[in-house]
């Protein structure tokens, strides 16, 4: 990128006024103190046995090895990956369908767009509480009156609790992804479709061969942000199940929070946080690489 933009040579040797440094350096130092140092300290603690206070000593990779043998932590990873995978696929598939619908020849388009985006505005903790009531009280009583067995108990108290959390997450997550897909669809020049209509292309072919490649960059944005967000899932779990029943819906973030602060696993959960960081970083980079390559091929 640096090479493509040519600068006037006369500027090359010119010294940058001190004032410009003052516009960046102070806030850069604050960021270093409150963001980078905690990050580095977390990495450091992950190699110690510190419990959050008192004395400590180095233990090498012991915390990392412990993590793999601890069924609570391995289960948190299993749950989080499963949740992130289903949430990402379902949110993006449904959001894309809604966006295509909103982009059709419909009336009240802006009103409908505003309604579908509304859940984005609401805090996921409160939405979680509302859905907890829906799953815990409303649906069971409805299921009992209708004698529908599968609906007459609170799903959040069963081994399928994660599906309840997934439904709530989809309800809220659709808002943002739909908006992005709609922006993508609206950026497509309608004349391309007119040309395709002449060639006698059916709607499905039109979508797969024309629309989808054109909105591929929007697909990349949504996919990367979804995966990253859902791997961090926290608020709605605290609201709906508190990680239960048992530890069946304990995500990685919930595990770090509960065991790191309330339990005595400060160092072990520091190691957990480091692993979570590596996971998020790796998945995001792979996604960006793969999806960008595909965009190039499609484009």
């Amino acid at each position, binding site marked *: 990128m640096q090479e493509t933009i040519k600068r006037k040579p006369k500027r090359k040797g010119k010294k940058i006024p001190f004032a410009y440094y003052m516009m960046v350096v102070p806030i850069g130092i604050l960021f270093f103190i409150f963001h980078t140092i905690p990050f580095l300290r977390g990495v450091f603690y992950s190699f110690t046995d510190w419990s*959050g206070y008192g004395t400590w000593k180095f233990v090498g990779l012991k915390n990392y090895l412990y993590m793999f043998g601890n069924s609570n932590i391995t289960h948190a990873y299993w749950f989080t990956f499963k949740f992130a995978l289903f949430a990402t696929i379902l949110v993006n598939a449904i959001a894309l369908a809604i966006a295509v619908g909103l982009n059709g020849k419909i*009336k009240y388009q802006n009103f409908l767009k505003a309604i579908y985006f509304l859940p*984005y505005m609401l805090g*996921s903790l409160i939405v979680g509480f509302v859905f907890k009531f*829906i799953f815990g009280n409303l649906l069971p*009583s409805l299921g009992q009156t209708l004698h529908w067995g599968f609906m007459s108990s609170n799903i959040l108290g069963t081994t399928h609790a994660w599906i309840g959390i997934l439904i709530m997450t989809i309800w809220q997550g659709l808002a943002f992804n739909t908006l992005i897909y709609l922006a993508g669809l609206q950026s497509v020049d309608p004349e391309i479709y007119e040309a395709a209509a002449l060639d006698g292309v059916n709607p499905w072919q039109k979508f797969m061969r024309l629309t989808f490649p054109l909105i591929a960059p929007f697909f990349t944005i949504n996919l990367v942000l979804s995966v990253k967000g859902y791997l961090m899932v926290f608020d709605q779990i605290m609201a709906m199940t508190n990680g239960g029943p048992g530890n069946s819906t304990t995500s990685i973030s919930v595990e770090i929070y509960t065991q790191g602060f309330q339990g005595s696993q400060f160092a072990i959960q520091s190691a957990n946080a480091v692993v979570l960081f590596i996971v998020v970083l790796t998945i995001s980079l792979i996604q960006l690489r793969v999806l960008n390559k595909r965009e190039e091929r499609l484009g």
Partner: protein
Amino acid sequence: MQANADLNNNTPAPRKSKKRKKKVNWTLTSVMMVLAIFAILGPLYITVVIALKDPSQMTNVLSLPKQIHWENFKNAWQMTNFPKMFLNTLFITVVNVIFTIFTNSMAAYVITRYRLKNKFFNMMYYYFISAMFIPFNVIMLPLVKEVSAFHMDNIIGITFLYIVFGLPQNIFLYSGFVKEIPTALEEAAEMDGAKPMQIFFKVIFPLMKPMHATVAILSFMWTWNDFLMPLVLLSNPDQQTLQLAQYVFQGQFSTQYNLAFASYVLVLLPVLIMYVFFQKYIIAGVTSGSVK
């Protein structure tokens, strides 16, 4: 949602008349409408009707209240210490938005303008951008230790952290925008003898207005709805936010659903009112923040 009407003005007049000729797809319109009403507005309807009822009317949860119990709001207001929590949240949000816009845009401007000429600013750029890959959840354990050592586990401390933690994303957003601003204006101001600060605040800062709107909206939404950061940093009951207070009071509501839902409505209402008035700008802001 009156603002809707003038959004249509974006489309140029000739195309509009051409579009008019095409028939409205009423089947699709109905499907989208029904889905919006039941799937999206349904849960909100449930929230509001429960908040307006008393326990005796809860046998049929979905029915409209026969008698409206406004006192639920009064009780929830007192029980959750709403005014205090509201002011705390408002303080964090407003101060964060104002300071974020000034400090983050300034840093982003300098970094973007000089990173191609100067190694230091280029390094700063990559430093902030790579920090985007470090989620808050990863640093929260050591951060809490650090924050309590600095005695920053209060409203002012958390506000300060929001301003600093927004930097990576905001530098990313502003930098894409600054690249598009031609340098001629600054060069002219420099010739006239303007100082760097004057150049930034008089020439560049006003030009960044569209991106200020996006950053303001995203910062607002982040701080107003954030739960995790207040949860781990704010322990003093006087120093809590609306979201945190809701979590803390869950136990006290127990099965008093009407009170609990009245209190949810109180928390959701400010954001909903804002959305009704500014939805056009909010939707445009969020879109331009994610799509370049």
